[in-house]
C-alpha cells in the first residue's frame, strides 16, 4: 500500500503487544511440543532436538466440511496447550478470553469490526479458505480477531484443524514489535495473516 505512515502490518504487532490480546487458535493435531531455546543469529544452530512427530499423527480428525469459528484468546494460552480440537469431532469455538492487562486507548473494543477477504489456503493446491474479522476500538486500535476457516478438499482428511498464529505477548513485545513480515509460516498462517492484513487495511 502507498503510505507515509508505517505499514499497517508493522502497526499490528505493537498494537497487539500493547493490548496483549492474542489471536485465535485451534491447535493442529500434530503440533510438536516446544523444545529448546530459540536460535540466536545466523549461522548459529539451535540445541533443540528434532521433533520427528511432524506428520503421520494417528489422532486425525475426520473431514469436516463446515466452517469452524475460533474466538480470540488472550495471550495467556501457552503454546503447548492442546485445545479441545484434538478429537474426532470438529473443534468447538474457544471461549473469549478476558481483556488484556495493558489498557487500550479506549474501552470500546469491538466498536469497529472489519472483515478481511476470504483467503485461500494453498500449498501445491487449495484446500480451504480462512476469513479473519478484526475488532478495534473507536480509536482504531486493534484489540482482537476471530477467524473462520473452511476446508473443502475431501482428500486431505488431516487438515480439519489448523494452527492459527498466536502472538504471544512476550514475542510481540520482545521480537515482533518492529517486524515488517515473517518468514517460515505454514500455508494456513500465511492465509490467516493475509486475511488479517486485508481486514486491518480497512480500519
Amino acid at each position, binding site marked *: 500500500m502507498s503510505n507515509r505512515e508505517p505499514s499497517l502490518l508493522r502497526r499490528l504487532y505493537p498494537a497487539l503487544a500493547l493490548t496483549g490480546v492474542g489471536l485465535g487458535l485451534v491447535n493442529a493435531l500434530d*503440533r510438536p511440543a516446544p523444545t529448546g531455546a530459540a536460535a540466536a543469529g545466523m549461522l548459529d544452530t539451535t540445541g533443540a532436538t528434532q521433533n520427528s512427530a511432524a506428520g503421520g499423527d494417528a489422532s486425525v480428525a475426520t473431514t469436516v466440511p463446515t466452517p469452524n469459528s475460533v474466538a480470540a484468546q488472550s495471550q495467556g494460552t501457552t503454546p503447548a496447550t492442546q485445545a479441545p480440537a484434538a478429537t474426532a469431532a470438529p473443534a468447538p469455538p474457544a471461549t473469549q478470553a478476558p481483556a488484556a492487562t495493558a489498557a487500550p486507548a479506549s474501552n470500546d473494543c469491538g466498536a469497529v469490526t472489519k472483515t478481511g477477504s476470504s483467503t485461500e489456503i494453498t500449498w501445491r493446491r487449495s484446500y480451504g479458505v480462512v476469513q479473519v474479522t478484526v475488532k478495534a476500538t473507536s480509536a482504531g486500535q486493534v484489540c482482537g480477531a476471530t477467524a473462520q476457516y473452511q476446508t473443502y478438499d475431501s482428500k486431505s482428511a488431516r487438515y480439519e484443524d489448523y494452527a492459527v498464529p498466536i502472538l504471544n505477548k512476550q514475542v510481540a513485545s520482545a521480537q515482533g514489535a518492529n517486524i515488517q*513480515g515473517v518468514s517460515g509460516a505454514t500455508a494456513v498462517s500465511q492465509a490467516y495473516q493475509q486475511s488479517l492484513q486485508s481486514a486491518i487495511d480497512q480500519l
Partner: protein
Amino acid sequence: MGTTASIHVDDDVSRESFDAAADAVHSELDRLEAMFSVFRPDSEISRINAGSLHHLDASPEVVDVLDACAWLEQVSDGAFSIRRSRNATEINPSGFVKGWAAERASHALAEHGLNHWYLGTGGDYVLHGGMASGEPWRIGIIDPRDPSMLVGSVDVKSGAVATSGTAERGSHLWDPRTGEPATAFLSVTVTGPSLTWCDAYATAVFVMGEPGLKWIGRFPGYSVLPVR
C-alpha cells in the same frame, strides 16, 4: 506459484503510482504463472511433460529456469532437483520458480521509481532500500516448532529472505536422491542478495541436512539459519 504477493512501499508516492507499480508486478507474476504452472495443462512446463513441447523450443525464460535448475542439481549433487527422483522424467520447477518469479516481478517496483519497498510471497521476501527513515526492514523467522514464536529476525536493507521447510503440516520435502523425506531440519532460512538463490539454497540445504550448512558456505553473501 499459487501464492499471492504482497507489496509494501515506504516511498512518498501517490496511490496511483503505487497501484501502477503493483499492477505491473502482478501482471508479471500472472504471465510467469501461465508459463510455469504444472496445474495448467497449457503451460509450457505441462506441455514439456506431455511431450508436445521440446524444452529447447520453450520460451527463453523457461530455458533459463531449466538451465539454472540443471546447474543447481549438479552443484548440490542431486539434493536439489526438479524431478521427483533420479529416474523420473516429469519435471516440476515450481520450487525454483517461486523465488525466481517473485524476484523477477519485483524489478517492476524499481522500474517505477520506488526506492523503499519489499515484496513478500509465501514467506519469501525481496527487500529494497530499507525504510524511508533509514532503518532496515526486519523480517521475523517463525519457529517451526511453534508458529506463535519467532526464532529470531533478520535486518535487511536490500536483499532477500527465504525459508524452506514444511509449509503444510504433515507434508515433507523429499530427497530426490533417496526418495525419502528430508528430516534433518524443521526449517532452513537463507538470506542473501537474490531471492532466487536464497530460495534454491534453502531447499537444497534442507534436503542435505548438516552437510548443507558447509555446502552453502561456497556461495558468498549467503547466510543460513537451520532450526532442528
